[in-house]
């Protein structure tokens, strides 16, 4: 039967005007503000569960608490003990999962597509630290959470993964939470960022 290609939607209502990017409805707004927020939910999000001393752990090469770019540009986040989150361009989940499944792991290993289960936001600019200090008790000082730090903590009372992933030498953080609270997290960040002039900057692929 003929179906129109379904449009994927983020839990965060896109700020108009909207467009479709890699099959996802996203905001087409562009901003040059000092402090920007982008809904990066369209990114492929792969969850890997495996022992911390197995073949997969070695292949991923990122310990818990740290994040680093893999060879293909995938961001590998050590999101928990024995748990990794891989962030890759939209629509690439099957390839990334395939790569992971090829690794010969002796113990139990699980590779799941978490693309639909998470909301993912990026905030960028020097003022991100001031913004985060209004919603999170973590110390975002350079010595404590340098670039590549991966932290799970409470953001506006919501369990949120925070990854410091600087762009072009400027502070940038990825924040992800389970999907249904995505709009809440976005609203909380917009409220906290209001005094710093936060603006929405729409998602553009590949986006990682």
């Amino acid at each position, binding site marked *: 039967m003929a179906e129109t290609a379904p449009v994927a939607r983020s839990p965060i209502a896109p700020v108009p005007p909207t467009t479709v990017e890699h099959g996802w409805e996203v905001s087409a707004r562009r901003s040059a503000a000092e402090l920007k927020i982008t809904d990066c939910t369209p990114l492929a999000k792969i969850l890997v569960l495996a022992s911390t001393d197995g073949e997969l752990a070695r292949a991923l090469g990122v310990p*818990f608490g740290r994040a680093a770019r893999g060879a293909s540009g995938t961001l590998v986040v050590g999101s*928990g*003990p024995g748990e990794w989150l891989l962030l890759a361009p939209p629509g690439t989940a099957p390839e990334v999962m395939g790569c992971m499944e090829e690794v010969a792991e002796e113990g139990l290993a699980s590779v799941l597509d978490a693309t639909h289960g998470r909301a993912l936001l990026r905030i960028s600019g020097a003022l991100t630290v001031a913004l985060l200090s209004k919603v999170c008790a973590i110390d975002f000082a350079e010595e404590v959470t340098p670039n590549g730090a991966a932290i*799970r903590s409470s953001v506006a009372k919501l369990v949120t993964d925070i990854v410091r992933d600087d762009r072009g030498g400027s502070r940038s953080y990825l924040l992800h939470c389970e999907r249904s609270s995505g709009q809440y997290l976005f609203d909380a960040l917009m409220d906290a960022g209001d005094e710093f002039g936060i603006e929405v900057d729409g998602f553009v692929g590949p986006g990682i």
Partner: protein
Amino acid sequence: MILLPCPYCGPRNVSEFRYVGEVSERPDPNETGVEGWRTFLYTRNNPSGWTTETWFHRAGCRQHIVTERHTMTNEVRVSRLPEAQLRGGQEERATGGNIASDGGGATY
């Protein structure tokens, strides 16, 4: 608000954790009558002093951890993985802090 040292995440605000309770050995349910079982369920030592307890790092690594905490000072002298995981051969991890290694009562 005390800082609880998580063996995985380091010291974090205690509000990130859920208190699970004093560590108590679960008896064999096939060998234990209902009276003994209820002692396991409901009776706690609740000491004024050092106590070994389980916490769940709910808003962090989502791991259950075991601490030795002084109930009068909130000093935490040990923070480690649960007994069952240590028996599995995993090493006790260094704790993030909160241990009075020197300087007496310092709580960092």
